[in-house]
């Protein structure tokens, strides 16, 4: 609601009257402070209310002021709170009541009053100091008064003199600003000062106030621990400082002055000569002031890394104002200002300072002087950069990088960055990075790097899909921020016109330097050239034939030509190099490949091998780098995938590997690369391998003393064999068939068989007749090898096979000249390359079978096992091979037995005893040869059989001992399990529970302690086999070495029986039966019995019968009269009879 004047007066009067009377009483000490306070509060409320409703005028103000004046008169005795209320009332009266009608004299007096109230009188005691609230209220009131006075009586502010009201107010306010701990006081003082200063139009007066003001403000703005100032205060202070400085020292003011003074018109513009009354604002003064201001600013700008953005912003505005308006007067401090602004602009690009950056840029670009300053700052920063990077202060590092980045941006925008600057920058960057690298080296050294085994490398597959490189350097966590800044700096620079000369300058350093420097410059070059997502520029859209065309392709190819030797060199000097150099060289290669695309493909001649080579690096990071490079390379060269790339360039790789091997470079990577290749490319590779295999053999010959290398080389050969085996259609067979030497069980011919045989015979004859009619000249059909199973191939019956086999066996009897049909061989097409290759691989193993390293021997034997299966398809070449390798394999089998028993002819320089696994492998190899060569082996088997038998017996006895020992250790139940396991198969005959011990004695094993074994067996005689126990025995036997040997010997013996055309009646066969009969009925050995039965079922039956008989005899069930069919002779007789 609005008050009329009357109403206002009505409202105002009672409290004023009351206040007046109370105040008077108070003076007469008839009223207490409390009474006065109450009255004051009432009046305060009314005045405030009226003031709010704008119902006051000068009359009412006068009226209301009267009681207040009495109150103020008693100010010495009143509390701060009372005075505060009074001052508040006064403020309302001034601003709302008197307004423009305020008498200047009145105003002055009020100011004095307020100063006294706020400042306190010197007489006042310390504890009676005015409260903060009072002081700030006073200051607010003063501020109001300044405003009003400025409107009504400007002259008040222009009076010059040491004791003027202005001077005193300024003094008071500055005191409060610096001295008061309270934020409100500081703020209100700053406000008041601001409004006061803005009212002063006399520059000389201002200038006289300047020193004190600036020094006080500087003091206030200097960060100190005693008084903490809030950001609001700081912002206000900055504004004040900016205000007074620009008011006094702004160029236009100074220049106007010179113009108006007339006397200075002929003087240079920079030195305005001002001569006026009290203070002479001449150039001397200006100089002195400027240097003082510079000092002050130097202190102030320390706030540039204040936490609050507002503060920084205010500082930025101050500096900006200085640069804009005090360009000439404060030229000394320009550098400082610019640097501060650059720092501030760099600090955060996202907030309002982003636009500050633009302001700065425009400012500097528009003024060449500023530009020169900026450039010199930039130089200084660049030079300082390495030093800063050396330090530990991450913040400082970031700071300097940001500064450089922003300054550089502006300098580059100006379009005249000098080459010298670029060179500086390049060298500084390189140094900085190398310092950072050296720093992080300590960290990276701590990392435990695990060298991967070659087998891991072989597992290399498509699962690696990394499409980008891991950072090679500066990957430590600590340097992350620095790295980000460095990236930002680089990305900024590489889009600029200077990037080319920068890159060139750094590239030069790659070639000249070494070590960390080289690494750093290489890294920087890559950073500059690698644009994953090129930021599009406006020229892309406008298609302007710009002068600054893109030189990146040249730069990249130059860098590539520099780094290529590094990459190639890494394959020879592996350990010397810092792994990061080849890693970066890889990146450079990829960069080039990406650029050239498909047309990079010929370059793969040189680069593919080193990359694969680096896959075998002991440094895992380099390894993964190489892997990534491989993938990226495939991508860049437009191959569908990595292995396609490898396969299509296999010729290059082979070439490189072969050259390496040829120069007797025995680092294992060459063969390892080959291994990877073989796995990847398979049999396709084999035709290319021929001279490589030759080189491997040469290497084997030269370095046979290095078992690791030999093993690796044979691994390679083994893989070659494997791959050849996997893809026989391509490599070897060409229609050759695997020979089938396996014996089939004898089946008595039925009438049907005979008929079929006759029918087949007839058919065959008819067909041959027809063929000869058709092609009388071609007699190929009839000339084909007699043992070739073409009958079974077509429709020949099963029975004919047996005939064929016996025929074959007879044919193979005269093994001394397996090439009796030399003519036939000549007719046959020459062997394919892969085939001859495999043959020579097999032959080359012979001298190495006596290698001192057991693993090598093992590898060789396994290799032979695999190779025989493949090569057996071509008998004419295979059988001579068997003849060659046979003497070399035998010692491996028998060396563990004793040297005297083995064929001593073949062994010279016999290595130490073969470990069990070699013996096992030898047995397996011989078995494989028997499978492949069939009847060809029978003569050889015959010659070695005695040794074999001895060996088997020895092993078997060991196995038995083991079994018994185990049985004894396990107590009664286990022992029973043993015996029953032995008899598991013969349980068909009832009541044979106790056969176990008997069986053991038959094979002449050392008899177990009867007292210990018999008792438990007897006690548990009626328990039968339990499968769990059987399994137990099985696992136990497979665990020991001897039992493993035993197993493979068993396998060998059965193979001999099955595959070497063993006639049903033969010494060896009988011997084998004797050897095997103890275990042929064991569970899990069904194949043994099967084999025996295939060979001669009757003999098996006889042996079993005899055993049963002996057992029964021991038990007394049979009489001695039945001893007619004893031994093998009996078995024969019996069979002959049947």
């Amino acid at each position, binding site marked *: 609601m609005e008050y009329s004047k009357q109403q206002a007066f009505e409202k105002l009067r009672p409290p004023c009257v009351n206040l007046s009377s109370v105040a008077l009483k108070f003076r007469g000490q008839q009223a207490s402070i409390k009474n006065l306070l109450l009255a004051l509060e009432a009046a305060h409320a009314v005045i405030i209310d009226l003031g709010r409703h704008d119902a006051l005028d000068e009359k009412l103000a006068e009226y209301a002021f009267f009681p207040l004046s009495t109150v103020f008169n008693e100010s010495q005795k009143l509390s701060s709170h009372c005075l505060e209320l009074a001052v508040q009332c006064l403020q309302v009266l001034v601003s709302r009541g008197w307004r423009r009608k305020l008498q200047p004299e009145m105003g002055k007096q009020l100011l004095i009053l307020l100063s006294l109230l706020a400042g306190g009188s010197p007489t006042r005691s310390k504890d009676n100091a005015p409260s903060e609230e009072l002081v700030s209220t006073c200051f607010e009131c003063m501020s109001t008064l300044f405003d009003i006075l400025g409107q009504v009586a400007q002259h008040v502010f222009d009076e010059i003199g040491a004791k003027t009201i202005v001077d005193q107010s300024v003094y008071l306010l500055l005191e409060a600003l610096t001295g008061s701990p309270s934020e409100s006081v500081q703020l209100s003082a700053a406000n008041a000062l601001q409004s006061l200063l803005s009212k002063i139009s006399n520059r000389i007066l201002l200038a006289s106030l300047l020193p004190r003001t600036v020094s006080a403000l500087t003091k206030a703005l200097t960060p100190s621990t005693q008084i903490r100032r809030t950001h609001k205060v700081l912002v206000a202070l900055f504004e004040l400082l900016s205000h007074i400085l620009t008011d006094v020292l702004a160029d236009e003011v100074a220049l106007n002055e010179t113009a108006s003074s007339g006397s200075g018109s002929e003087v240079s513009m920079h030195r305005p000569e001002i001569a006026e009354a009290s203070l002479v604002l001449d150039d001397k003064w200006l100089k002195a002031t400027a240097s003082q201001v510079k000092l002050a600013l130097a202190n102030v700008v320390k706030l540039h890394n204040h936490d609050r953005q507002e503060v920084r912003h205010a500082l930025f505005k101050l500096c900006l104002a200085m640069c804009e308006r005090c360009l000439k007067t404060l030229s000394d401090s320009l550098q400082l200002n610019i640097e501060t602004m650059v720092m501030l602009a760099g600090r955060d690009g996202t907030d309002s300072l982003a636009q500050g950056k633009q302001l700065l840029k425009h400012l500097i670009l528009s003024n060449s002087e500023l530009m020169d300053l900026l450039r010199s700052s930039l130089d200084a920063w660049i030079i300082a950069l390495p030093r800063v990077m050396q330090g530990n202060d991450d913040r400082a590092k970031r700071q300097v990088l940001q500064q450089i980045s922003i300054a550089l941006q502006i300098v580059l925008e100006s379009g005249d960055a000098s080459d010298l600057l670029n060179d500086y920058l390049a060298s500084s960057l390189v140094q900085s990075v190398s310092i950072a690298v050296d720093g992080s080296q300590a960290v990276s050294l701590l990392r435990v790097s695990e060298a991967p085994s070659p087998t891991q490398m072989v597992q290399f597959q498509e699962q690696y899909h990394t499409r980008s490189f891991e950072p090679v350097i500066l990957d430590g966590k600590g340097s992350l921020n620095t790295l980000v800044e460095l990236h930002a700096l680089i990305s900024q620079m590489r889009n600029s016109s200077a990037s080319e000369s920068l890159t060139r300058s750094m590239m030069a350093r790659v070639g000249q330097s070494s070590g960390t420097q080289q690494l750093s410059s290489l890294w920087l070059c890559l950073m500059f050239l690698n644009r994953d997502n090129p930021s599009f520029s406006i020229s892309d859209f406008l298609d302007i034939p710009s002068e600054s065309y893109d030189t990146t*392709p040249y730069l990249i190819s130059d860098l590539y030509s520099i780094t290529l030797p590094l990459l190639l060199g890494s394959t020879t000097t592996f350990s010397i190099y810092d792994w990061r150099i080849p890693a970066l060289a890889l990146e450079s290669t990829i960069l080039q490949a990406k650029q050239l695309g498909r047309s990079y493909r010929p370059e793969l001649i040189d680069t593919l091998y080193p990359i694969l080579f680096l896959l075998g690096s002991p440094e895992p990071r380099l390894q993964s780098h190489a892997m990534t490079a491989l993938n990226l390379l495939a991508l860049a060269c437009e191959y569908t995938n990595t292995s396609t790339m490898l396969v299509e360039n296999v010729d290059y790789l082979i070439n490189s590997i072969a050259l390496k091997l040829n120069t007797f470079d025995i680092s294992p990577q060459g063969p390892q690369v080959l291994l990877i290749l073989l796995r990847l490319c398979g049999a396709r590779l084999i035709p290319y391998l021929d001279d490589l295999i030759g080189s491997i053999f040469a290497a084997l010959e030269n370095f046979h003393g290095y078992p690791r290398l030999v093993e690796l080389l044979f691994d390679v050969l083994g893989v070659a064999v494997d791959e050849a085996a996997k893809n026989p259609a391509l490599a070897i067979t060409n229609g050759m068939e695997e020979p089938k030497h396996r014996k089939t069980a004898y089946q008595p011919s039925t009438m049907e068989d005979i008929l079929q045989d006759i029918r087949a015979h007839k058919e065959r004859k008819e067909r041959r007749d027809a063929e000869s009619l058709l092609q009388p000249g071609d007699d190929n059909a009839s000339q084909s090898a007699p043992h070739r199973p073409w009958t079974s191939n077509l429709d020949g019956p099963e029975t004919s096979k047996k005939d064929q086999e016996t025929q074959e066996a007879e044919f193979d009897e005269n093994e001394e000249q397996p090439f009796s049909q030399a003519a036939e061989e000549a007719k046959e097409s020459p062997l394919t390359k892969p085939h001859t290759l495999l043959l020579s691989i097999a032959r080359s193993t012979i001298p190495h079978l006596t290698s001192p390293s057991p693993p090598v021997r093992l590898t060789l034997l396994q290799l032979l096992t695999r190779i025989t299966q493949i090569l057996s398809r071509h008998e004419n070449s295979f059988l001579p091979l068997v003849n060659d390798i046979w003497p070399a394999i035998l010692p491996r089998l028998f060396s563990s037995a004793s040297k005297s028993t083995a064929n001593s002819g073949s062994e010279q320089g016999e290595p130490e005893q073969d470990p069990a696994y070699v013996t096992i492998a030898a047995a397996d190899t011989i078995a494989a040869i028997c499978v492949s060569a069939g009847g060809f082996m029978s003569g050889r088997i015959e010659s070695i059989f005695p040794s074999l038998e001895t060996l088997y017996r020895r092993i078997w006895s060991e196995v038995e001992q083991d079994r018994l020992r185990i049985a004894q250790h396990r107590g009664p139940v286990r022992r029973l399990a043993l015996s029953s396991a032995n008899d598991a198969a013969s349980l068909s005959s009832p009541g044979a529970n106790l056969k176990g011990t008997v069986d053991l004695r038959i094979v002449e094993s050392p008899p177990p302690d009867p007292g210990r074994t018999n008792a438990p067996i007897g006690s548990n005689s009626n328990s039968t086999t339990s499968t769990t126990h059987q399994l137990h025995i099985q696992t136990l036997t497979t665990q020991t070495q001897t039992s493993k040997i035993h197993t493979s010997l068993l396998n060998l013996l059965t193979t001999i029986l099955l595959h070497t055309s063993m006639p049903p009646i033969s010494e060896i066969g009988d011997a084998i039966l004797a050897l095997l009969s103890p275990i042929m009925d064991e569970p899990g050995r069904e194949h043994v019995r099967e084999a025996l039965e295939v060979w001669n079922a009757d003999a098996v039956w006889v042996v079993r019968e005899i055993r049963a008989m002996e057992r029964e005899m021991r038990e007394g069930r049979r009489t001695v009269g039945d001893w007619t069919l004893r031994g093998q002779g009996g078995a024969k007789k019996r069979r002959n009879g049947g």
Partner: protein
Amino acid sequence: MSSVGNLPPATPAFILRGHTAPVHALQFYKQNAFLVSGDSEGWIVVWRLASKRPAACWQGHRGSVLGIKVWENSVITHGRDHKLRAWQVTEASLEGDTLDARLPAEEEGRHGTEREQPWLLHSMDVSALNFCAFAICIASNAGSAEDAECQAIIAAPNALDSGGIDFFHLPSERRVSVLPADPQVKTGMVMALDLFHQPETRLLTVVSGYEDGRTMVHQRKPMASLEENWKWEMILVSRPHSQPVLSLDTLPSKDFYFTSSADAVIGKLAIPTSNFDSDKNIKPVKTNNTKHAGQQDLTVRNDGKIFATAGWDARIRIYSTKTLEELAVLKWHQDGCYSVAYADTLSLGLHEMPSEAGQDQALLASRDSTNSALEVIRQQRSLKAQMTHWLAAGGKDGKISLWDIY
């Protein structure tokens, strides 16, 4: 070997694998962009040197390839099947991958009769009994009228008179002359030939090496008319070798030639230019008993500074043409080497070697866009391959070793 000093043994830059039979002839083609090789089973392979891969491959003869020469856009091969064939092998067809490039090594068992061959321009019956490869002289436009553009004279041993030489003319495929063997001297078979125009007199000159180690130079007498029969004058006879001459090659200046033989000697002979001695029996200018018998092939590099020989001892030897001193021994092949060829040392004045000149090229290309910058880089690369001083050697093992040496 002594001159090599302590350098590590040289290694080939690349091995071209693919022939399954001994490589008997090698020839660079199209300014070193390609290498043509022929093996003893008649297979001819054109290798692209930039990628070291075959660009074309076909079985050109039913027998061993004795010699390969190139002429314009054609590759001329001479086989033991008594055929001389000129195949049209253009750069376009090689680059365009229109020709079958499967190598004999990849063709197991099958013999590529059905595969596509390059266009056969000429096929002539030429004797190949002597194992003597033909010689070709691209007819220059100098002198007589019949020597017009795109004509070639081919020299090959005579079919009946094994010491005589036949001369054929291409493209007419007609035998233009026969140089019969000297009945007084028993030279034996012709073993090696070279044919060229004497640079000064422009007279057709044929250099021949014989079974008995003799070598001769004949020059065609100037003719009055076209119809006249060619008349030959012997201007040199020498016998530097005790064994059959295996190969000979002439300096580009055509004033000296070198012979290698089944014995260990290498001979250097001067070709007389004028006022021939009445005694034509001239001693070689220089001989070098290398102590390495059987240098099957001899090739002079086209700058005339060095020549290389392929030896039965599986080594390539490089000699100085001036002193006949052995400069290098290259060992890679396991079996004997049968052929050796030098890439032309090109003098491409326009193109500097692309090395530190990046800046200049950048300026040169500054008007062009990025694409052409890439183009320039690509050209530089292929140029670099062509500029390499390749030495190719083929051996009994069917492999061709490429050496970048001198």
